[in-house]
């Protein structure tokens, strides 16, 4: 018990004195997961909207694949990204294995199906005739798609936050493709794993609290969005 209390006391000390290492790890985490989320947002919202608004043979299969991708295990993603980026792998020439860029890539792979899946559902949940209503107002195809996306902006925001929440708390892929190199590719989750295994509970708890706070804020905003009444 004392171990935990002492850990928490020291954790707050590290957080409030803006300990250089803890701060660096936190900022890198935000940067990596933020960029990964940004990439997944661009791809996910486009693909999700396109699939939601089109009819083509094999669409059902594509939807199933996207939904499966939403629960892609990070370690599996880590494994395949590692293989791809390996010196002899198909993308080995990029020479980005064990760099923050590799983590961004792996996290983008994890977040994209999440954003795509929620976008797909959000656009499909719009009233069936809304698209026709927008067209009848004289909109071009591009204007129509833009107005539909705008109409689904709240669930789309939720999609992005869910993607971010998924990757900021993910550890398997980050450790496999990033290598947890101190001051270079060490993020909140990988650092927590390492410090815990070393018995440095104070730092581990500090990192854990920061992660919890991040998760809390993401979820608080998500809840806020979900609790707003739906437009008619």
């Amino acid at each position, binding site marked *: 018990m004392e171990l935990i209390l002492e850990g928490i006391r020291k954790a707050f000390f590290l957080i409030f004195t803006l300990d250089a290492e803890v701060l660096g790890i936190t900022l890198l985490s935000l940067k990596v997961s933020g960029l990964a989320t940004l990439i997944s947002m661009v791809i996910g919202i486009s693909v999700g909207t396109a699939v939601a608004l089109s009819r083509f043979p094999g669409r059902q299969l594509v939807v199933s694949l996207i939904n499966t991708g939403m629960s892609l295990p990070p370690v599996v993603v880590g494994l395949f990204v590692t293989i791809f980026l390996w010196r002899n792998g198909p993308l080995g020439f990029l020479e980005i294995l064990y760099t923050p860029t590799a983590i961004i890539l792996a996290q983008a792979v994890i977040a994209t199906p999440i954003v795509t899946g929620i976008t797909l559902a959000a656009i499909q949940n719009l009233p069936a005739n*809304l698209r026709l*209503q927008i*067209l009848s*107002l004289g*909109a071009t195809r591009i204007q129509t798609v833009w107005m539909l996306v705008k109409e689904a902006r709240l669930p789309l925001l939720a999609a992005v936050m869910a993607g971010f929440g998924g990757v900021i708390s993910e550890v398997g892929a980050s450790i496999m493709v990033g290598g947890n190199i101190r001051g270079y590719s060490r993020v909140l989750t990988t650092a927590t794993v390492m410090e815990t295994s070393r018995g440095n509970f104070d730092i581990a708890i500090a990192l854990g609290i920061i992660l919890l706070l991040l998760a809390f804020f993401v979820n608080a905003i998500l809840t806020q969005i979900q609790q707003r009444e739906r*437009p008619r």
Partner: protein
Amino acid sequence: MSPGENPAILLKAEGLQVRRGGALVLDIPVLDIFPDQVLALIGPNGAGKSTLLLTLAGLLKPSRGRFSFNGREIGAGRGDVEYRRRIAMVFQEPLLFDATVFDNVAAGLKIRGTGREEIGRVVPRYLELFGIAHLAKRSARKLSGGEAQRTSLARAFVTKPEIIFLDEPFSALDPPTREALIGDLERILRETHTTAVASTHDQTEALRLADRMAVMNGGKIAQIGPVAEVINRPADEFVASFVGVETVLPGRVLSVSDGVFVAAVEGGEIQAVGHVRTGEGVLCCIRPEHVTLSTNVPPPGTSARNVFSGIIRTITPLGLFHRVRVDCGFDLVAYVTRQSLESLFPEEGKSVIASFKATAVHVIPRQT
């Protein structure tokens, strides 16, 4: 339309067919929409009313068919943005955007790239017209059903469409809200000289708003023509059963006294009960079961205020009773049992006295 008269046709559809999964769901050889007129599409669910509206509005690509708008051929389906910018459509659901009432009404103008200044000038006029000016800044999510549908209508009218398509615009509203909105829409349609095509399954709605009426069944137009003509002379059994065989007489109020008014109709005068003002236009609807036929003049012991002598034009057997059309200057339809018919007036061309009570006349106010 009498022969020789050749009114301009605003929108013409020819050889229109829509197939869904191999089945023919819409089959309309020809349909003309005349400017400044309201055409009501009436028919049961699944008759093809919505499909026809969507096709005419360029929102649904027909399997085949040709359209000409103002004499110019237009592409079928969603490709023709130019055409879509000259029409508007209102659905049964208001389908408002998650924005203020003002921004919703401005949506069509923004799509057309209208300047902010112009929008600020035009939109308030239409908010006023539909009685929602006080709601301008309110979120569209916080409106009642009636307010939301008014917003949707204002959004459609604000772009000054040449044709407005209305797909059962009042079906989702409760009766008092619907009543108020129909009255306003009728006034606005007349004032703005807007051409409209409106689907409905409510005959009264069609009578109040429409100049012409098309009765649809199974993807086909069973009958199309001026409202009174369709109702007074249904072309077939389906039309008769759907519109309810009624006598509908357009007229004008001559005088009102003590709640009873006298209306001049073509070929005669009718007494009826209703809240109307002298000079106002009305439609007098008389159901055939309310019309009594007799051979005596006047029929003894009746409180009927409307008594006409006429000549029997047609007798149509309808199973347990007969449908008798009497010419009393205007056509009046009566239902008569087989027994009465045989004992009283067995043949067409015979003189007869038709009567009905002032309270039996269903009065629908009309501004035209």
